[in-house]
């Protein structure tokens, strides 16, 4: 009988620890591990949003997207890198956030205006242009 009670307590304890980690330490998804739902040219992605924002949101909002395009601006802002493709305002802006920026620092430092890149990140929607964050550089 004692063994059964101890057994249940052990399960409850393990279960409790599991819940604790889930609630307080659930990790943010790592874009390196995530598969892109779409791979698309930056100019095409921008056009889709510009022409029909609601339809584009239904398709892309909250999804992981891989965009290919030419860099028009690249800026280091704090610990993050902000890369704009096609146009600074009317294009696709990708934020490489700190936890990923650290891993790719050497590649990010070497980026120049005019470089053709492939970037994977989460699509957050459209303001003047399309906005992606949690981005990483897709390196061959």
């Amino acid at each position, binding site marked *: 009988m004692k063994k059964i009670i101890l057994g249940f307590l052990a399960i409850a304890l393990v279960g409790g620890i599991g819940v604790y980690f*889930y609630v307080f330490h659930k990790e943010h998804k790592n874009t390196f591990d995530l598969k892109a739902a779409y791979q698309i040219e930056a100019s095409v992605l921008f056009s889709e949003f510009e022409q029909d924002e609601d339809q584009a949101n239904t398709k892309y*909002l*909250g999804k992981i997207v891989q965009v290919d395009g030419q860099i028009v601006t690249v800026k280091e802002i704090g610990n*993050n890198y902000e890369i704009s493709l096609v146009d600074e305002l009317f294009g696709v802006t990708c934020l490489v956030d700190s936890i990923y920026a650290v891993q790719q620092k050497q590649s990010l430092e070497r980026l120049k205006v005019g470089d053709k890149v492939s970037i994977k990140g989460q699509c*957050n929607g459209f*303001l003047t242009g399309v*906005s992606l*964050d949690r981005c990483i550089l897709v390196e061959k």
Partner: protein
Amino acid sequence: MKKYLILIGLVAFFSVNALAQDIFFTKNGSVDFTSKASVENIEGKNTQVVSFLKTETGDLNFGVLVKAFKFENALMEEHFNENYLESDKFPKAKFKSKITNLDEIDFDKSGTYTAKLTGKLTIHGVTKEISTTAQLKVKNKKITASSDIIIKLEDYDIDIPSIVKDKIAKEISIKIDMNYELYKK
């Protein structure tokens, strides 16, 4: 001859007006909000806010993508998007305002000014008319703006389930920080 003079006059008039209207913008504006509750403090940060300031008209507009708010706690970020702000349904928050004391601000002169703003704040699909102030610092064709707003979640139909009502404050403090640059087309 008269028509020619009128034409020149019109061109001059519009040219002068075009020069007088300076448009300042940022696409890295910062909006931080904090919920201070008895059990815990929750903070969400957005560093991709787009904002335009038109010095001639005093138009000051902000666009915020809800999914761009980042939280330390991944589960809170999920709840924020899926349950509280419903960001799939309402991906944007907006503030369209006007500086009502424009005559007290000289954008050509370096200095600190207190701007009074009145406008429409839209969160979670609900629009409310609000008034607030912003500190503007003008220096060398760059403007910084900072403002603090407090909003009530219920005003924007944001429902917090009773299970977590002690963890999330009814009133949220929002801190806005913008660094504007002159927009060159």
